């Protein structure tokens, strides 16, 4: 079975995510750059346009401004009216005919020329003598802003101002009149038709939906726009970056917040018009300029979205293509782990995945084969094991039977032997009546051979018990000095018989009381002592007992025949003596040392020998020192 995995771990998801991120990233970057560039270009374009519009309107304004002075010049130079004017100026009250002639002329000019709305004539002291508009006659213009300058300049253009009397924006041009002698005689003034200026400003070509051009004055804070012409006088100062810069004499382009109460970001061109003492601004909202760019952005986003969907589909397709074999392999591997090897992958083709599929099938086949072989092997091994177990059980049973047989046989052998020894002893002790010397000798031989036989039987019984694991070691607290004394008592007679010295040394470090199996220990030590006496003809036998913190040692040293080096290795093995001949000379079964070693090991100790041929031997029994019952291991 396929294991459930978190969706975010799957290759498919990861591949799709990877493609989506990759494409979304690149589309995003490209779109962003595209939009940036588009916007920049659009803004540059807008600025160019605004610049061109500003330049055009500036020229139009300049042209328009030239036409006022030209009209006045034409009037001043007109011979028909020049005479009457000069006469009338020199003598203002003399002839009203002159006034009528002049008025009519002025009216004719204004009627034919749309630029100049009103033409008037005033004296050097500022009294209006004649006008195309009769209402103006006899008014005094000394308080008008242009009056002083009109006397000092031949031609003067008064920048637009708000005429309080008229209640509207006013633009005036003046022309100083001189008499034949060249002296200043009076002033012609022409009030220009501001509608014309408004018309120039209201031309909307190239300004789109939100674009506008307008004029802002420096002094009187008027704002001249087509839409707002009527709203004078103005209650507040109109301020924006563009207005401020233009009013300080600069010209240029920038994007900034416009002057409205509710300001908008605009692209603007600002121009200082010295003749009008005004700033001309051409502005269009950034929003409108970039509207196209927004479209481009939307188009790019739409394209990107499309690409994303495409990428996702592609990712899905690729991922499915890639993961399907893997999932199939996973499924089959899962089946294999359950022990089913019959399924094969259907992945084909020359690609790496196809190769993987084929390799996988091969592996599966090999694995299946191997497992079959292994199963067979396991069966074989189990059969072999079973046979081994049976054989082992049989062997154990045979050993047990052998040991039992040995035990029984020993008993059966011992009983008649005991009888022989007993009766021989009775006869030798004279308990059965007098016997002669010869018979005594023979009975002695019977006795010693019987005892040898008994000894042999006892040893064989011990070996059988050791092999059967029935030789029990029973540790008991004992007074070791007494035990040693007993060993001495029981063996010194043998040494005495051979004329050997018998020495005994007990180190003071040997505890008075300790735990040991006295029976078995006695068996071992007496075996060593009797061996030592047996193999020593002259000199002495020494019994040494020593102890340290953890163990105690019993050493039996003799000055006997010694053991050749090669024999040291096998002297503790069963039925081994130094050589065959020694058996005959010295007697013994060859089992004593083997039994001793087994007993020592069962008591947790060991036995070893040091010997020099011809000089003697030292057998050392090493045992763990147990002075406290608690130290007894339960197995002992």
């Amino acid at each position, binding site marked *: 079975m396929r294991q459930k995995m978190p969706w975010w771990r799957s290759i498919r998801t990861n591949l799709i995510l990877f493609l989506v991120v990759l494409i979304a990233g690149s589309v995003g970057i490209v779109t962003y750059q595209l939009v940036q560039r588009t916007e920049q270009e659009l803004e540059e374009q807008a600025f160019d346009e605004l610049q061109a519009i500003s330049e055009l309107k500036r020229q139009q304004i300049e042209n328009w401004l030239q036409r006022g002075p030209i009209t006045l010049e034409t009037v001043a130079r007109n011979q028909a009216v020049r005479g009457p004017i000069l006469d009338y100026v020199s003598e203002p009250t003399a002839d009203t005919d002159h006034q009528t002639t002049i008025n009519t002329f002025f009216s004719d000019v204004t009627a034919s020329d749309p630029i100049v709305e009103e033409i008037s004539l005033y004296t050097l002291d500022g009294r209006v003598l004649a006008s195309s508009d009769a209402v103006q006659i006899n008014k005094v213009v000394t308080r008008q802003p242009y009056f002083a300058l009109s006397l000092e300049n031949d031609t003067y253009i008064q920048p637009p101002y708000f005429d309080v009397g008229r209640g509207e924006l006013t633009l005036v041009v003046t022309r100083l009149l001189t008499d034949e002698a060249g002296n200043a005689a009076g002033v012609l003034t022409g009030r220009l038709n501001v509608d014309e200026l408004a018309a120039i400003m209201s031309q909307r070509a190239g300004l789109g939906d939100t674009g506008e051009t307008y004029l802002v004055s420096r002094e009187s804070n008027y704002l001249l726009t087509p839409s707002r012409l009527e709203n004078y006088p103005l209650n507040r100062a109109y301020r924006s970056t563009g207005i401020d810069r233009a009013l300080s004499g600069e010209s240029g382009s920038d994007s900034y917040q416009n002057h409205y109460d509710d300001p908008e970001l605009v692209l603007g061109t600002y121009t200082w018009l010295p003749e009008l003492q005004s700033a001309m601004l051409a502005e269009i909202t950034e929003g409108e300029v970039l509207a196209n760019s927004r479209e481009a952005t939307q188009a790019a986003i739409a394209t990107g979205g499309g690409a994303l969907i495409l990428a996702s589909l592609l990712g899905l397709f690729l991922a499915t293509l890639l993961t399907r074999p893997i999932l199939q392999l996973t499924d089959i591997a899962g089946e294999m782990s359950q022990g089913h090897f019959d399924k094969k992958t259907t992945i084909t083709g020359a690609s790496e995945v196809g190769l993987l599929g084929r390799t996988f099938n091969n592996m599966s086949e090999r694995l299946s084969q191997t497992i079959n072989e292994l199963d067979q092997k396991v069966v074989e091994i189990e059969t072999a094991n079973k046979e081994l177990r049976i054989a082992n059980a049989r062997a154990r049973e045979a050993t047990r039977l052998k040991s039992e047989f040995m035990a029984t046989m*020993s*008993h059966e052998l*011992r*009983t*008649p*032997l*005991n*009888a022989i*020894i*007993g*009766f021989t*002893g*009775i006869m*030798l*002790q004279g*308990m*059965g009546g007098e016997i002669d010397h010869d018979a005594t000798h023979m009975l002695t031989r019977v006795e010693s051979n019987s005892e040898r036989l*008994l000894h042999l039987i*006892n040893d064989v*019984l011990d070996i059988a018990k050791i092999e059967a694991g029935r030789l*029990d070691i*029973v540790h008991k607290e004992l007074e070791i000095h007494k035990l040693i004394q007993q060993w001495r008592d029981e063996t010194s007679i043998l040494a005495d018989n051979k004329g050997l010295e018998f020495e005994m040394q007990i180190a003071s470090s040997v505890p008075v009381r300790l735990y040991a199996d006295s*029976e078995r220990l006695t068996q071992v030590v007496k075996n060593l002592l009797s061996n030592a006496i047996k193999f020593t003809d002259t000199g002495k036998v020494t019994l040494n007992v020593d102890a340290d913190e953890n163990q105690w040692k019993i050493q039996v040293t003799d000055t006997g025949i010694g053991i050749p080096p090669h024999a040291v290795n096998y002297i503790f093995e069963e039925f081994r003596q130094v050589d065959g001949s020694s058996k005959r000379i010295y007697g013994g079964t060859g089992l004593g040392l083997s039994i001793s070693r087994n007993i020592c090991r069962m008591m947790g100790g060991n036995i070893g020998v040091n010997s020099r041929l011809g000089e003697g031997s030292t057998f050392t029994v090493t045992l763990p020192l147990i002075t406290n019952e608690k130290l007894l291991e339960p197995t002992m």
Partner: protein
Amino acid sequence: MNKIRKNILEGWKVVVVDDEADSLEVATRILRFYGANVSTASNGREGVEIITRTRPRFVITDLSMPELDGWGLLYELRQDTRTIDIPVFALTAHAMIGDRERAMAAGFHNYLTKPLSPATFMEELLAIMETVPALEQLIQY
């Protein structure tokens, strides 16, 4: 052994119980050699009967026997006021090491080890007789 007086058991009634005839005879011959008045039995049941009847000074009995073994014999003797005080020595086989401890624990006064050695038997017997105060005072060296 030469030191031991030949008639040292003169007047002593002794019972030996053993199912092995040879072993029984060896013991009997040695004891008789030293003057003892020996009665024998070849199993525990017989032994109890003879002991109760003859009231010996001590009993030597084998442990492993048919009918009633040595342990059973001891038990029976201890149940009867007539025989409750009679010292009983066990005969334990050399190989049966555990028997010696068990014998002492069961209430035998002491034990002798089989096979019996005529050369040392009397020495050993006197040694264990000395461990029983009632017998010790009767011994006349």
